């Protein structure tokens, strides 16, 4: 018995590291492009107009005989990926603003402290039982969240997504902050503007499995191949939603590639300021451009002392704001499948794209001039 066990142990000892290392060596060949086997459609280069996307029929789901609450007070719950990061604090702010304007909407935000799929599902499930009129969500995983959202629809609860989508038939509408390819284009264009079309760059993202980031990165691949063939993609590193780790990973990239490195992309509102911090503290402002998605407040110090030229982001406050208006519109029946636009308070009319997505508009670019006008 004992001998046998020892044998197994020795084997596992030999095999495990070997296999891991070989595996590690292998998939160095095909570098991860974030595509997750989904199609990409890069926008045309430069200032060319994007061909208008061919109209697509409504592909969202519908609640099962929801109560008619047109004009009535409604209670909404908002379940973002997680709470505790600035980005979702901002969307919450927007929702509150909208609720105030409308006056007949009450919305509360409640979510796990980690971006964890089964936790988020439990939260939503509880609110279905508790009985709310509508659910706003930002999905940690488009598929995983599906069943529970469908359950909500069956319970006659309206479901609207924002920031991170779910499978279309699991929700009615999705408020899309910006098209993936739009973000990709904006990011790469600003890098090109700052460092030229032959810049070489690294990326710090949250995790390879976070859908939004993955999609953005894959669109960047596609767009870079189309429009900036001379750019070199050095490396992409994971850093969770963790500021320290993002900082460390940025340092690692800076140290590893030295002068070779022209730009750092931060793919999350955590990673971008962390990257900027790293560049600043390495006193490499100017040499290494930091470009990324982030909220203004976090970036003000860097933008103001000129270390960061441009921050790409939609306005998350508006995103939350829009989500509530869309929800209200559904309940009031002013937004129905097949519509092509929707009224969203101070944001005016928003376009509806590929079937069931409300588009917030093109990504916004914060610069030294305008960043101080924003506070979130």
């Amino acid at each position, binding site marked *: 018995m004992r001998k046998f066990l020892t044998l197994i142990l020795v084997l596992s000892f030999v095999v495990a590291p070997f296999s*891991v290392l070989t595996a590690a060596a292998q998939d160095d060949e095909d570098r991860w492009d974030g595509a997750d086997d989904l199609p990409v459609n890069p926008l045309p280069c430069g200032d060319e107009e994007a061909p208008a996307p061919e109209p697509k029929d409504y592909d969202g789901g519908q609640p099962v005989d929801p109560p008619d609450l047109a004009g009535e007070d409604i209670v909404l719950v908002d379940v973002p990926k997680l709470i*505790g*990061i600035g980005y979702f604090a901002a969307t919450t702010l927007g929702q509150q603003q909208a609720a105030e304007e409308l006056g007949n909407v009450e919305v509360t935000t409640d979510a796990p402290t980690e971006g964890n799929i089964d936790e988020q599902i439990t939260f939503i499930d509880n609110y279905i039982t508790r009985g709310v009129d509508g659910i706003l969500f930002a999905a940690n995983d488009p598929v995983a969240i599906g069943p529970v959202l469908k359950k909500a629809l069956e319970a006659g609860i309206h479901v609207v997504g924002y920031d991170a989508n779910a499978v279309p038939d699991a929700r009615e509408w999705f408020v899309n902050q910006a098209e993936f390819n739009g973000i990709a284009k904006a990011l790469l264009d600003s890098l090109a503007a700052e460092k030229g079309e032959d810049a070489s760059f690294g990326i710090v993202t949250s995790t390879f499995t976070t859908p939004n980031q993955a999609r953005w990165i894959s669109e960047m691949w596609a767009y870079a191949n189309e429009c900036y063939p001379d750019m070199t993609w050095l490396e992409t590193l994971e850093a*969770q939603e963790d500021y320290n780790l993002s900082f460390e990973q940025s340092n*690692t990239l800076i140290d590893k590639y030295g002068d070779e490195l022209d730009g750092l992309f931060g793919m999350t509102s955590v990673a971008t300021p962390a990257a900027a911090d790293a560049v600043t503290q390495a006193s490499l402002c100017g040499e290494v451009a930091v470009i990324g998605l982030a909220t203004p407040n976090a970036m003000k110090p860097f933008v103001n002392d000129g270390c960061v030229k441009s921050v790409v982001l939609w306005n998350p406050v508006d995103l939350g704001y829009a989500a509530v208006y869309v929800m209200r519109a559904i309940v009031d029946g002013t937004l129905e499948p097949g519509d092509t636009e929707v009224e969203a308070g101070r944001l005016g009319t928003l376009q509806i794209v590929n079937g069931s997505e409300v588009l917030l508009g093109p990504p916004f670019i914060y610069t030294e001039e305008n960043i101080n006008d924003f506070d979130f």
Partner: protein
Amino acid sequence: MASITQTVSVRRQRFSPSSILRSVLGSQESVLLLALILLIVWVGSENRQFLATRNMVNVFAGNAYIAIAALGMTMVIITGNIDISVGSLMVTLSMLSGAISVYDGYPSWVSTDLTIALAWVLPVIVGALVGAIIGFIVTYLRIPAIVVTLGFLSILKGLLIIVSGGDRITGMPKGYALAQIRPLEDVSMPIFPAFFQTLTMPVFFMVILTILVALWMRYSPTGRALYAVGGNAEAARLSGISRHRVVMTAFILNGVFVGIAAVMNATQFSVIQVTLPPIELTIITATVVGGVSILGGTGTVVGAMLAAIFLNTITKALVFLDISPFWTRAIQGMLILITVLADLYRRHRQSA
């Protein structure tokens, strides 16, 4: 006759090669140091960039706050307890520190410098208080530490969100940045002589604190009492050492060091976020890899510090070696396992 044997045996111990060997290869500390050097040299030979000064600095600075938190964890584990709530506590205290520094409701006579000082000191005190509470429950109410801290893990996490509203803090005043990774002259703190300017603050803190604690644990009666209680509580009681007092001390100091780590963490960056990665596991790992026996009674803070650096070095090394990031964590786990096994093996050999 007594005196003769004495001198004889004293000499024997001073110069016996066996005892020297035992002290060199016989401790996890030196093993780690060796591994660390080998690793750095190897990676350096694979990729020159790795040896660049800035990277070296980052290698040592990166896990400084882990190392400092590990100081407290080492004490706690040596007394035969454990604290898995340190992660939540650290984030809470960072937020607290930031909140104090940006709060604008102070009366006029409170100068910015004073606010900053508060932001640096208060979290440490609060940390000590939390440590005291945990220690009290563990000792006087006799509930296993792992249970208590498991409870505190979620209590603190919850309170943190409730208090902070889940938003991050930015726009801290200029002088607040205490622990940035940059030559010290940039930091508006004149108290440090030029010598340290090559170092960066995190490394500086890590090294100084580790040395102080190491000395304290070796030369102060209380420091030794930690080992006594962890090694044989009954014996300690009979040599007049109060287990309760010692364990309390361990938990309070643990709180203090978590506080310091938190302040460093907060003052290192321009943004303080409420993100809760499972730091506690990293800290415990560092402590254990550093040769602190989970059963209590043995281990040193130097080991824990080296382990913290070691872990960070691995993470960076894997990038510099172009190992696919997907496999990073697997390899880390494997290396952790191997170092721990090495430690166990050595212990077996020694007790023989």
